[in-house]
């Protein structure tokens, strides 16, 4: 370790014992990559704008970390959001935000890259840049480096963050990351300027440089035009990797020294989703659906368990049950995990689709808490949102759970879905009630009292979904529907909770905001907003003030129906799913007509012609 690191280490030693869980601020974990600086040309600070515990659980970060570090002269390090006790100490002592591997300040890196997983982490980005001593506004940054960039699902509408980032990487990062790092290598060699780097980066497919686009607005506040300049493309098309089965997969993880949210090996089995639930952004922006082969999954599982020493592995995907040969996969996987005494956990798996034999294998390995997401209370509303779950499916699943000795079930629903009426809200209660009845009707159920916890969140319309045109339900109606449900729920065995409405309002505004919303984010942060995703830190009052100070109306972004011909703020971003398809799907939703999944029938969403028809044909 260099002298400089030692001095940072000494400075940290002075106070680290005074902060909660110091080991998350000091690196040194097995699997973390430390390189000789003299042999490194490009340094990348991979920032996760949330805590260590959350960020370290994220698969995407592990993939891109491994990928970049596999290049000998590139060094990627990790950075997380410090909690307030740590941040206060750092600010008091003038310790700039540093990377966990080298303990070097990230302001000296070539790239500072954020992953945008969740709108409510946006203020954390500003806080982290500021703590790093890097100007938070892109226009205030000079010199070639550091370049501040972002990727991840929220980058599909990058506009609210356009003021803060030099560029965004749209779509799958596996190839793109190395391409823009190569451009930086050239620029450093040539002594090029920041503007020159950005101009060149904008030529890479999937790279969006916001400063190269002028936005004009109509009098009613909607977007009038988006005009590229300096040779930037009119549409930035999202990247997808050519061969998913052969895509880079890390053979090792950084294994944390302290507990994190998901402390286990994770293997991605498929990407995308065949379902097309109309509210679900992930279901559209990650298209097309692609699977890894069983052998690939087995190899990766084995290798990862060997290298990390984890005795738990989880399969990651949007819907593991859709894997074509799921029984074959689980049979082979459980052969391995049983022999090696490894726990297999399968989130997002619908158990009602399996034979008893496979089921036994899974539940024998680990009993996981049972949760279901019917999303809507009646069949009518589930057809509107194209959620392919029937009451019978729910009953079949909970029956399996009750037979297995469980007594408590969690059900997730959304409130404020398009076309929703009180009848649909009543349906939520009826379904919960039916689950209770199913408990008593299941032979051999456990002794105790059954319980159903219902979580009813406020629906948030997201870009690139058929519901991007929809208003979010206004506060009065949300409260009215909550009250109604309270009056009809007389069963003590059913508990109903409502995740914060205020939080979902801000999330709705940020999700579909335009470039002007950046001012409100900046103002809210200046007022002290950060860690908004945490109930104890979320300050709705400050957010409200911030929007008022900027002369922006939250309802304009959240509660307005947008016409089909309005130009959305993200019009220049091409996620491959066509706008015509989204409009068609929106119409079908209002007509209560479902759309078959991609395996049953292609609905012509537009992805297939961008990627070549083979990828989509392989789904069926």
């Amino acid at each position, binding site marked *: 370790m260099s002298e400089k690191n030692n001095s940072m280490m000494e400075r940290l*030693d002075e106070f680290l*014992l005074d902060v909660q869980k110091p080991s998350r601020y000091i690196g040194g974990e097995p699997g973390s990559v430390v390189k000789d600086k003299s042999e490194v040309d490009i340094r990348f600070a991979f920032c996760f704008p949330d805590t260590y515990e959350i960020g370290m659980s994220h698969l995407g970060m592990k993939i891109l970390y491994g990928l970049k570090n596999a290049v000998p002269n590139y060094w990627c390090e990790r950075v997380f959001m410090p909690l307030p006790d740590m941040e206060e100490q750092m600010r008091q002592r003038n310790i700039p935000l540093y990377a966990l591997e080298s303990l070097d300040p990230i302001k000296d890196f070539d790239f500072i890259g954020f992953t945008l997983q969740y709108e409510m982490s946006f203020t954390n980005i500003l806080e982290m840049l500021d703590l790093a001593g890097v100007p938070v506004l892109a226009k205030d940054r000079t010199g070639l480096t550091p370049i501040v960039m972002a990727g991840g699902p929220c980058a599909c509408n990058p506009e609210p963050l356009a003021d803060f980032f030099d560029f965004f990487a749209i779509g799958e990062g596996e190839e793109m990351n190395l391409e823009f790092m190569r451009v930086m290598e050239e620029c450093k060699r040539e002594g090029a300027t920041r503007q020159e780097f950005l101009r060149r980066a904008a030529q890479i497919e999937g790279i969006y440089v916001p400063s190269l686009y002028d936005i004009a607005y109509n009098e009613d506040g909607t977007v009038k035009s988006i005009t590229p300049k300096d040779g930037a493309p009119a549409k930035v098309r999202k990247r997808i990797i050519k061969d998913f089965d052969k895509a880079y997969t890390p053979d090792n993880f950084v294994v944390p020294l302290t507990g994190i949210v998901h402390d286990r090996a994770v293997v991605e089995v498929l990407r995308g989703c065949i379902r097309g639930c109309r509210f679900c952004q992930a279901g559209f922006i990650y298209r097309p659906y692609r699977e890894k082969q069983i052998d690939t999954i087995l190899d990766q599982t084995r290798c990862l368990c060997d290298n990390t020493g984890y005795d738990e592995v989880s399969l990651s995907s949007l819907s593991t049950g859709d894997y074509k040969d799921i029984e074959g996969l689980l049979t082979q996987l459980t052969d391995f995990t049983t022999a090696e005494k490894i726990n297999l956990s399968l989130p997002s798996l619908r158990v009602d689709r399996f034979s008893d034999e496979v089921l036994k294998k899974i539940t024998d390995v680990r009993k996981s808490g049972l949760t279901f997401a019917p999303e809507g209370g009646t069949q009518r509303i589930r057809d509107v949102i194209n959620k392919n779950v029937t009451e019978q499916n729910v009953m079949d699943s909970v029956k399996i759970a009750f037979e297995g000795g469980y007594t408590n079930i969690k059900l997730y629903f959304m409130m404020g879905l398009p076309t929703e009426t009180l009848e649909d809200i009543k349906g939520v209660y009826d379904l919960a009630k039916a689950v209770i009845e199913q408990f008593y009707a299941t032979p051999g159920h456990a002794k105790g009292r059954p319980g159903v916890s219902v979580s009813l969140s406020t629906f948030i319309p997201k870009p690139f979904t058929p519901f991007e045109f929809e208003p979010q339900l206004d506060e009065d109606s949300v409260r009215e529907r909550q009250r109604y449900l309270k009056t009809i729920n007389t069963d003590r065995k059913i508990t109903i909770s409502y995740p914060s409405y205020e939080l979902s309002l801000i999330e709705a505004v940020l999700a579909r905001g335009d470039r002007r919303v950046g001012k409100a984010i900046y103002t809210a942060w200046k007022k002290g907003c950060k860690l908004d995703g945490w109930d104890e830190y979320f300050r709705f009052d400050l957010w409200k003030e911030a929007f008022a100070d900027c002369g922006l109306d939250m309802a304009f972004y959240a509660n307005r129906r947008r016409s089909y011909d309005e130009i959305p703020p993200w019009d220049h971003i091409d996620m491959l799913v066509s706008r015509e398809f989204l409009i068609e799907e929106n119409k079908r939703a209002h007509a209560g007509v479902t759309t078959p999944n991609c395996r049953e029938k292609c609905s012509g969403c537009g992805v297939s012609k961008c990627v070549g028809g083979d990828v989509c044909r392989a789904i069926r």
Partner: protein
Amino acid sequence: MCAVPSVNTRAFFSKTGRAKYISHLDLSSTVIRAMKRTKLPIWQTEGFNPRTYVTFMLPLSLGQEGEHEAMDFRLTEDVPFDEVKERLNAALPPDIRVTEVTVPKDKNTDITAARWRIDFTCDPDKLRRLCEKEQINVEKRTKKGVSTVDLKPLMTDVEIAGNQLMLTLPAGNSFNINPALLFEAYTAEYGEQVKRLRIVRTNIYSGEREFE
């Protein structure tokens, strides 16, 4: 030297630098995962949820370092000790280093004392005067509550040189004295807070000799 099947094995290791922030609980999961990575034949408990069986002697407080810590486990096959050491070091975090693998001679209940090295920032003369007092009473917190102990008769081989203190204190499963207590006594005596100390456990003893 080789271990015979299923025989107790003792590893001495250091836990310094960044690793001093690993809590005792996290240390055990960190070491167990490292052992899994080595693929060494280390004995696991039987049953539904098998666990690699490792015992750590004398937990260190968070933030304290150790240069000669000990842990016991069982090897179920013959592996040369040098190889065990090498494979463990390849798998452990860089700031946890195995220094020796051996057959245990003493039982862990034989531990009686530990040697400490402390870098301090307070006044050496005042510290010397404190150490020379007849009695050094401090409050010791245990699971059973707070009790007063006199450190004076418990401290042996006290050496102060510059800003470094070395001393030996009782250690073991039943009675253990943390050297930080002496600096609490310093604060009580002089009304001065003592800034961050670097506390290193350098050795552990069984009676008059080194714990083996």
